[in-house]
Structure formats: C-alpha cells, structure tokens
C-alpha cells in the first residue's frame, strides 16, 4: 500500500516534469489533468486501505546525507489522504473539462508537483521529508498563485503568500529543532521516544501553530488566504482551500497528538481553542462583508479551519484531563469536519470557477439570476451552500453537531478558568456557524437568485461534460456524507484511537452519539422525517388548493419603470453585495473589523449625488502592513551598520559568536 502511494508521488513529480513539453497541445494538458485526477482517486483508495490495514513504514534508499528518507502510513495520515484525494480528484476533473487548447506551462507544471508535495507531507515519517513535502507544496502553489502576474493585486497576493510560506517553513524547522533537541534525529520514531515537557512542549506547539497554522489560515496568520486563494485558477483555489489547509492541519495534529506524546497537560489545548474561535468568527464575519465570490469562500475557509482547530484543541485538552471518551468525541468532530469541509469547499470553489467561466465575473454585484441560465451549477452549489450553512441533514451539520456536543461537555475538564473560556468559545462557535449561514445565503442568493445585474450574467452559459461532473460528484458526496457520518466515524476509528486512546462513542451506522447515554443525532431518520413532513404538506395542499400558478410582474414597491438602457431593471432596486452586508457590518463589523460608513452629502445648491462609502480592514492586515514593515526597516538600518565595522570588530563578532555557540553546547546537555 505504502509503496504504491510512494510510486504515485513519484509519478506525479514525473508528470510535472513532463508537463513542460506536453503543455503545448490540448491533448497533453488533458493527459496531465487526467493523470492527476486518477492520482486523486488512488489517494482516496490508499487512505481507505491505510485505515482498514495496519500501519506501514518504508525507508527509501535515498534521502538526506545523514540517513534514509522515511515514509509511513498510519490511521491519522490515512484519514487525511481522503480529503486530499477527493479535493484533488474533483478539481482535476474540473480542470480537464476546461482545457480547449494549449495551456501555459507555468499553469500546468506546478500542478502535479503541488499535489505530490501535499501527499509527501502526509506520508512523511521524518522531519526532513515532511519539510520537503511542505515546501514543495508551498512553492508549487506560490507559482500557481503568481501565474497571472499582469494584475498588480495578484502580484501583491503572491508576494505576501511567499512571505508567509517562508515564515511558516522557518517556524516548522525551528519546531523540529526544539523537538529533537541536541540529539538532532528528526525521525518520527526517535521523536516519539523523547517527548517534550513543560515549557519545551509549549514552545513546540507555538512554533507549529505559527508554521503550519499560518498555512492553514489560523488567525492572526490568516491574512494571506483571502488574497492568495482567489488569485489562483479556480481548480487550484479549490485544492488550496479544500486540501492544502487540511495538510497544514494534519501537521498540527501529527505534532500535537503523536510526536509530542500523550502525557501533556490539558491547558496545551487552550491556544488552539482560543485561536480557532477567533479564526472562526473573523472568517465568518469577513465572508459576510466581501463582495468577490472567491474571496468570500476563502474567508469561509478560515471560519471552518477555526472550527476544526477548536475540535483539535478540545481533543488535546480532554486527553490531557484524562477524559478519553470526550477526547474521541472532539477528535471525531475535527476529523469529520476536515473531510466534509474539503468536499463542500472544493465544490463551492469549482462553482465559483464555473460562474466565472459562464458569466465572466467574480463580483457579486455583476452576477445574479444565474439559476435560470446555469441550473445544474446552481443546484449543485445549493448542496454545498446548505452544508456550509450547517443545515440538517447535510454533511456540515453532522460535524458541527459533534463539535458543539464536545464544547457543551468541555466543562468536565474541571479547571474554572478553562470552563469559562470554553463557555465563551461555545458562544463564538455558535456565532460563527450562524454567520456562515448568513454568508452562504448571501453568496447563493446574490449569485443565483434575483435578476441578472449585467448583460453578461443574463447571457451566461454553463458547460457540460467533465466540468459538470466535477460539480455533481462533490455535491452528491456532500449529501451522502451528511447521511452516513456514523459509517465515516467507524472508518475513522483507528485514527481516533491514535489521537484519543479510545474510539468515539458509537451508536451504530444510523446515528452518531455524544457520549454513552447522551444526546444522539440520527441523520437518516431525520432526513426521512423531513421528507415525510414535506410530502404530507404537499399532499394536503394538493388536495385542498387549485393547481398551477398565475404569472405576474414582481411587486416593485412603487419604483418607476427602469429606463431603456437598463434592460434588466434598475440595479439599484435589487439588493447589492454591500447592501446585503449592511446589518452585520453595522452590528459586528464596526467593533471587530473596524468597518466604517461615510456619507458625503452635496452642499446646498449642488447637483451632484450623495456618495456613500463603506469599507473595513482586517486588524491582522493592519499589523502586517503597519508596524511590521517599520520594524523591518529599523532592523535593516541596524544591520547596515555592520558593513561599516573595521576588520578587528568583524573578527571580534565572529569570535564572540563561536564562543556563544560553544557555551550553548556546553549548557544544553546539562538540561
């Protein structure tokens, strides 16, 4: 199994190299995307095989100078292969349907390498291999983000993304350094034998949160995500949001639940819970304010990553407080949401791509009424939107139900400060879930409902073939995953055992349960009950009411008829993206995101129109663009002074550094 997965990674790298000559012809580009789609399916099969079979370890005959490159598959990595494979498979299928001629090599070459990097990160069993995969993933996706460098905002996004990728990689290197200590052996087996304690464990966790958390989009290191994800082509955005963030979460889970050992205090979960709650609220609120479909979806990704991080943090806290059943519950919530979010967010990004292709815009204010022109896309999107809004009986509700149950049980940890913090986190998680529902209604309602806002939206066309299947497959999976969370948790059981030491409380494949004798959620009976209730309503109405409807003009609230040059009615008489966001911008945006509204009124006698300007700024972005560059400039100015040193001073500096290193070496083994 592991050998086959290893060969797939190698094949993907080779395909990446071969893509250079292949990109010149449409058939070559189709071949690359076809192979990547098949590799996605193979990764899913490998993940299922890894969950059902036992763990495996493979020492490659090559690697870094000090030893072989090690690969391994265990239940945790096998589970994370599922979201990766599903996301990559659907996205490649979508890209396959979009090839109609030669593809720019800079768009085609990094794509298989990006996928290979993610798979390698998940399969790695030593620090070097993991970092190799992680950096390949970062750099390949950077190349894809930077592909359209004609736009200044894309160049800016790519620059900021590269900065964050470098920072993240550096933090991960340091995390491995602190974890392995003086021995310096970064093989996972060796790291497990010497788990860190106390402050060292906390330092490792913070470094991993900085390194992998910045890649996952955990606040306050999330600012690159709404810039970079939309800049990439749609199928790449889908995988960046659906799979790459999950790979980063895998790294966090691998450190926190495996490499750092089980004997950690419960408060180690607190930073994950707090940062997760902050990400969830900030992401969901921003998703309500953005007016670009892909930016909006990227912000919704931040929200979901925050929820998963909360699940991981809760599992860590429960395990530290010796509550294994609850740890399994929280870990189940995190793992299930990882999979569900990967599927529905891939779907939604591909929908945004299809809309961009059909109606030539990503701006909510230039779309509208697409349900008439792109019906299959619209209904597939509705499945993803309903899941993202966590409505029963779809997949998002099942995992968020588990997360809320874990949060509601978190008071059992016993420490009163933790209890109060978790009570606040519970409120924030609920706020984020409801904000996500509002954001999704806004997204689907403004894009697909109403009247077209531009002639291009009125003439939108949808594609058939592979691109359409790439939407229908994840839509069907979203519905299916919502109905069988019990089966998925059965499949995840070995991973839960690895993370929590025990399996999740089970009540069979029909239901998922919070605890022995606690609350349960029965998705299939609930779906049947809902269907029966709707059927009963329809039957009663059919018997009592006359069939058919009378078409008539919409009630336009007394607006005058639109002028000739506005064939779709006055756009001002339809809700706009900013207008729909107004209540939340005023209620929460002013305090959390510094949102502002300003009305410039014309003076007496002036004939110009009054202008309303609105805007908001992410506080993390303000820090990134405000003090950080100032500190950098100050540091550079200090460093510049080194150039003016005399030869004696230079030698003194070097000598001092050597002495300091030796002193550190002498001091470290004593610790």
């Amino acid at each position, binding site marked *: 199994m592991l050998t086959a997965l290893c060969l797939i990674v190698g094949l993907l790298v080779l395909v990446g190299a071969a893509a250079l000559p292949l990109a010149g012809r449409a058939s070559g580009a189709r071949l690359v995307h076809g192979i990547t789609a098949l590799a996605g399916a193979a990764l899913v099969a490998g993940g299922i095989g890894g969950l059902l079979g036992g763990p495996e370890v493979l020492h490659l005959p090559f690697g870094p100078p000090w030893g072989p490159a090690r690969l391994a598959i265990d239940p945790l990595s096998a589970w994370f292969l599922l979201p990766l494979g599903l996301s990559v498979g659907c996205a490649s299928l979508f890209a396959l349907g979009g090839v109609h001629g030669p593809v720019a090599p800079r768009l085609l070459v990094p794509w298989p390498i990006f996928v290979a990097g993610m798979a390698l990160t998940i399969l790695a069993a030593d620090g070097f291999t993991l970092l190799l995969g992680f950096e390949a993933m970062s750099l390949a996706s950077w190349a894809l983000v930077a592909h359209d460098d004609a736009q200044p905002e894309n160049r800016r996004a790519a620059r900021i993304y590269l900065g964050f990728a470098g920072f993240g990689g550096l933090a991960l290197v340091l995390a491995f350094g602190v974890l392995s200590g003086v021995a310096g052996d970064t093989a996972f087996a060796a790291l497990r034998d010497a788990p860190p304690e106390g402050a060292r464990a906390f330092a490792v966790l913070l470094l991993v949160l900085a390194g992998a958390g910045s890649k996952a989009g955990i606040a306050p290191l999330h600012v690159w995500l709404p810039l970079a994800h939309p800049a990439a082509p749609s199928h790449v955005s889908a995988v960046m949001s659906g799979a790459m963030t999950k790979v980063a979460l895998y790294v966090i889970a691998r450190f926190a639940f495996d490499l750092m050992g089980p004997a950690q205090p419960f408060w180690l979960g607190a930073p994950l819970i707090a940062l997760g709650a902050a990400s969830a609220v900030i992401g969901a609120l921003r998703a309500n304010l953005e007016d670009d479909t892909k930016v909006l979806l990227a912000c919704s990704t931040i929200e979901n990553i925050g929820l998963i991080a909360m699940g991981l943090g809760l599992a860590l806290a429960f395990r530290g407080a010796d509550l294994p059943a609850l740890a399994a519950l929280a870990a189940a919530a995190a793992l299930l949401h990882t999979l569900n979010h990967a599927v529905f967010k891939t779907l939604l990004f591909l929908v945004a791509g299809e809309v961009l292709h059909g109606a030539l815009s990503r701006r909510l204010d230039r779309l509208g*009424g697409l349900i*008439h022109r792109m019906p299959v896309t619209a209904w597939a999107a509705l499945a993803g939107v309903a899941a993202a*809004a*966590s*409505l*029963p009986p779809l997949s998002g*509700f099942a995992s968020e*139900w588990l997360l*809320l149950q874990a949060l*509601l049980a978190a*008071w059992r940890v016993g420490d009163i400060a933790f209890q109060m913090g978790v*009570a*606040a986190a*519970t*409120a924030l998680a*609920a*706020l984020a*879930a*409801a904000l996500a*529902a*509002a954001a999704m*209604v806004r997204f*689907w*309602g403004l894009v697909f*409902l*109403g009247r077209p806002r531009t002639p291009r939206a009125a003439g939108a066309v949808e594609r058939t073939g592979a691109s359409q299947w790439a939407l229908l497959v994840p839509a069907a999976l979203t519905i299916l995953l919502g109905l069988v969370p019990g089966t998925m948790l059965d499949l995840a059981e070995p991973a839960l055992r690895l993370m929590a030491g025990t399996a999740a409380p089970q009540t069979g494949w029909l239901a998922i349960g*919070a605890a022995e*004798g*606690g*609350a*349960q959620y029965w998705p299939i*009976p*609930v779906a049947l*009950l*809902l269907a029966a*209730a*709707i059927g*009963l*309503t329809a039957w009663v*109405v059919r018997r*009592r*009411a*006359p069939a*058919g*409807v009378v*078409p*008539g003009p*919409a*009630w336009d609230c007394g607006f005058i008829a639109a002028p000739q040059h506005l064939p779709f*009615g006055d756009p001002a*008489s*339809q*809700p706009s993206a900013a*207008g*729909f966001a*107004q*209540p*939340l911008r005023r*209620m*929460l945006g002013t305090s959390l995101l510094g949102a502002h509204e300003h009305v410039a009124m014309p003076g007496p006698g002036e004939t110009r129109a009054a202008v309303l300007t609105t805007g908001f700024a992410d506080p993390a972005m303000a820090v990134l663009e405000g003090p950080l560059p100032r500190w950098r400039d100050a540091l550079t100015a200090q460093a510049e002074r080194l150039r003016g040193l005399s030869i004696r001073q230079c030698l003194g500096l070097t000598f001092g550094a050597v002495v300091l290193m030796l002193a550190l070496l002498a001091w470290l083994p004593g610790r």
Partner: protein
Amino acid sequence: MAVVWSILSQLLHIALVLAAAPLLTGGVRWLKARMMGRRGAHPIQPLRDLVKLLRKKPVVAENASAVSLAAPYLAVGAAVAAAALVPTFARGMAFAPLSDFILVAGLLALGRVAMALAGLDVGTPFGGLGASREMSFAALAEPALVVAALTLAILAGTTNLDAIAGAFRDGGLGLRVSLGLALVALLAVAVAENARIPVDNPATHLELTMVHEAMILEASGRHLALWDYAAQLRLLLWLALLAAVFLPLGQAPAGSAPHLWVVGLLAWGMKMAGLALGLAAFESAIAKMRVFRVPEFLGAALLLGLLGAVLLFVSTRLA
C-alpha cells in the same frame, strides 16, 4: 405495549401540534386585542384565513425560479419536523431519541434559510432587505440559544429535549439562578426568532419594521398560507419548548398509559394558555425597538446566558 403507547402518543402529539398552531396564534391576537380595548377577531380566524388562502391561486413573479415554488413547502416541512420533536403532553414518544436541542435549532435554521432564499428569488428590494436582516438577527440569536443550551446540558447531562424535560421533572433540581438566567436568554431568543415585538412587528407591512413580512411580500395564495402556517408552527414550537423545559409539571412520564395523557394534555393546554397570555401582555406593554437596537437586546440575552453558565461553574466549585 410501551412501543404502541410511544407511537400512539407521537401521532397524537403531531396531530395536536398541527391543529393547535393556528389556534395559538389566533388566541394571542385575540388576547392582545382585548388588552388594547378592542373586541378582536375570533381565535380561529387564522384557520379561516388559511382555508381561504388555500383556495386562491398564487400569483408568482415572471422571473421567479423553482425556489419560490419549493421554499414554502420546505419551510413548513422543517417546522413540522421540528415541532414533532419537542415534547408536549407526554415524554418517551417514538421520536424521543431524535429530539435533540441542537437538531431543533438546525431545523429552524433550515426553515429560516428557505425563507431568506425565497425573499431573494425575485430580486425585489424588500425581499433582500428582509433576508439580510433576518439572517443577521439569527446570527446574534444563535449564540444566546447555544449558551442557554449549555446551562441545560450541564444540569441535565445531555441536549436531548426529552431527557432534559425528564431530568427537570424528576431530578429535583429545584430552583436555580442559572436556570432563571437561561430562561430569560431563551425568552429573548424566542421573541427574536418568532418576529414578535420588540424585535419585529408581526402585524405590519411598514418598511422600517419589516423583517419577516418583507421576505414573503411576493407570496400569495397557497404559498402565503404555507408561510403563515410555518410561522404559526414556529410560535407553538417555541412556547412548547419553554413549557417542556421550564414547566415540566403534569407531563406524562415515558411509557405511561393513556389515562395519564389526559392529565398531561390538560396541563399542557393550561401552560400554553398561560404563555400566550404572558406573550400578549408583554407585546402590549412595550414598543417596537429600532432595528439596530436588536443587537443590544440579543447581546444582553447572550450575556445573561453566559452568566448563568458561569454561576453554575462557580456554584459546583463551592458545593
């Protein structure tokens, strides 16, 4: 035999809820009218309205999509499913294992999203206005609801409504400050979710107060009947939820035979009448607040809910 009783009580419960929903709304309207010195329409007037609306063909806008046609059925279906899960006169009904607090909140959210999408479907200004306000209010109500659920879940050990009702009926929990705070939080959420005064006015079409009505401005005929019925079911559901959790007195225990149901039915009728009277008095006594004051109202509910949970942590520590 217990299985038969549980199925029978579930069927009776559904029939009761479906029949009582228009009566409850009519009763509240009648009580409000009497308190304001008017004679008021007969309490069964909403039922008559439903029958009348059902007979009329709906007028649907030319550019409406299938969403406008399907959403009212989804809203009623979600409301019926949710109402079927909240215990009324007896516990241990056939759907008792399903009756989870968070699931009920999820089903209510499903109905809300259906209504917001129907409001956006035709692309009229009021529909969008109502949809955005409704979703924003829901975003603020949800944390208060979940925090109130936190208090209940800590005290009862589960979020299953049937089990919570049972724990509060038999557990001898007594009067607790935390429960009182959770009750206030839930009352505020109930007022907001049902579009009652002071958050929204269910009896106007004035643009400044419009939230709920704005979304269904386009609906007519059987569609309007369905929207109205869904709103009536939601009101009944919320009052039944409050009664089941905070006034579990008289409820027939799980597996009990039909003679105890009579007591349960009588007690439930009295509880609902009392709650309707309280709602009418509350609505008559206060004025509608400005739209952008609603966050303060729901924020206060959230803080009270949090205070209840924190008090519980502190008190269990002292005990």
